């Protein structure tokens, strides 16, 4: 068995124009990646970066416009059915039938894979347990909370025991507790040897779950590596966050630039970020310059900072 589970070179996705007046739109603009069996791989990026478009091509529901793509050693253009039979997909929207019960959703999906009703029943029982939904089995899906739906969608995606699980923003819109429950479930799957590919807006999620990731922006890959590598390469060890009173930030930035610390300063609408090896020392320096921030916070650099350094924009606005 090969170690590579999916591979793309020069992958492009151009959508045809929506109407006569608009132009074709290139959502994915020549990207390369190699996914290893057993790893957790992340696609990070802001809205419209092309994450979902990429995921849909891997999932064989959207043919690439150009480039080569191999999934499970097969060509999606000719072997879509066979590939999809071995994939699990968790789409960005839950895509559950809200009028059917929790169990019926699993039944329908299992049937699409040609599984017998008995086998589906057996697996559904295990999966509902895994998703902590056993006591909701007979409930209609529209009675479930957002977090429960997400867990059900993940449970459903496992009905065919996939080798490769594609998760498009698995935790968007969930509260912190629900996110942690999901992270735990995903971590267990990884331990069982399932290859995970996920997209996310959240840097902490990528840091928690991903062995490797790529940062996408405007359809291109702008950086790749492990979370630690990316932080080491594109950010400093610590970040000092300073908030000023209304209208005072511009003057403070001006003062810092004149002081020529050599450190990178990022201005955000509500605060400024000072990238530095020693946050406390930087704060002392700020005070010495006569700056009086309303709040000051020293923290470790995160992937959020990597993204900002690469694109000049924050991820979640």
């Amino acid at each position, binding site marked *: 068995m090969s170690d590579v589970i999916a591979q793309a070179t020069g992958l492009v996705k151009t*959508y045809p124009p929506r109407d006569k007046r608009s132009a074709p739109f290139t959502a994915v603009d020549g990207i390369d990646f190699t996914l290893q069996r057993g790893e957790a791989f992340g696609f990070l990026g802001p809205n419209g970066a092309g994450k979902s478009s990429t995921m849909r091509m891997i999932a064989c529901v959207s043919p690439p416009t150009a480039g080569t793509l191999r999934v499970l050693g097969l060509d999606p253009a000719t072997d879509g059915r066979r590939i*999809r039979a071995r994939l699990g997909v968790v789409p960005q*929207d839950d895509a559950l*039938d809200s009028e059917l019960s929790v169990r019926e959703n699993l039944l329908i*999906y299992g049937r*699409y*894979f040609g599984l017998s009703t008995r086998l589906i029943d057996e697996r559904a029982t295990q999966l509902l347990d895994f998703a902590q939904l056993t006591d909701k089995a007979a409930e209609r899906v529209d009675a479930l909370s957002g977090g429960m739906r997400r867990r059900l969608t993940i449970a459903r995606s496992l009905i065919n025991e996939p080798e490769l699980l594609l998760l498009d923003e698995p935790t968007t819109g969930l509260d912190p507790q629900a996110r942690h429950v999901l992270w735990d479930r995903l971590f267990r799957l990884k331990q069982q040897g399932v290859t995970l590919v996920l997209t996310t807006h959240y840097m902490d999620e990528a840091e928690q779950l991903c062995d490797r990731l790529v940062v996408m922006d405007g359809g291109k890959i702008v950086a790749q590596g492990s979370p630690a590598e990316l932080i080491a390469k594109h950010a400093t060890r610590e970040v000092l966050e300073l908030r000023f009173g209304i209208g005072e930030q511009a003057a403070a930035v001006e003062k810092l630039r004149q002081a020529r610390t050599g450190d990178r300063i990022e201005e955000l609408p509500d605060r400024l970020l000072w990238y530095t090896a020693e946050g406390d020392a930087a704060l002392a320096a700020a005070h010495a310059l006569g700056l009086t921030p309303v709040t000051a916070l020293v923290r470790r650099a995160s992937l959020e900072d990597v993204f900002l350094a690469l694109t000049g924009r924050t991820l979640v606005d």
Partner: protein
Amino acid sequence: MTTATASPGMALRFYRYCWLHYRRNWKGTIVISVANPLLFLVAIGAGLGAVVGSHVEALGGVSYLAFFAPGMLAAASMQNGMIESAFPVSYQRMPGRAYPVAVSTPLEPVDVLHGHALFMAVKIAIGAAAFCAVMFAFGVAASPLAVLALPAAVLTGFAFAMPVAAWAVTLPDVRPVQTLFKWVVMPLYLFSGTFFATTQLPEAVQHLVALTPLWHGVELCRTLTLGTATWAGSLTHTAYLTALALVGYVVARRNYHRHLHP
């Protein structure tokens, strides 16, 4: 474009989904697709028919009920064909609904089309069979050939269902569907010879009406039921409706692929 070959087994998987979904939703549509046409049949056919009196010349010397019932069979079938395709297809193709879910599994868009089309055909047949049963109970059938009005009605419904499905799968939302019912279904219903003989219309309009698919469905069902069918006429009507269904199917196949695997 359509590279994947269709699989009947996969299509049946989607067909089974349609029934499971319908089990939750039948109350919403049974009234309009089965009960409504029957009410029309009784109220207009029997009620108004008594007022009109029988053996009016323009109706070809039959009672108004006998004239109206097979026409209504075709018109109701047309409406069922549209109801079964327009709303469900434009709804299920939306992000997060049944179509995108099904095509992310081993099913191809063409399998979804086949499974759903089979379901539409069965639903149209059930509605037409219920109508035929009541119509025959009224003693309208004048010939053993009248039983062929049932497949004729199913063909009529299906000839509308396929092009409408081909169109509905391209829609970004369901609003245009309402427009379709207001501006296409209603006029066809009224002027294709269901309620009155088209020979009463000006000649130019008659030629126009003879181009509409519903007129062919109405004529086919009516002549078979009343025993006035001719080979030439029936074959023409059947060929016209079959061609419409086929063209709709071919376009649907292409559109399903384009819009479900974009």
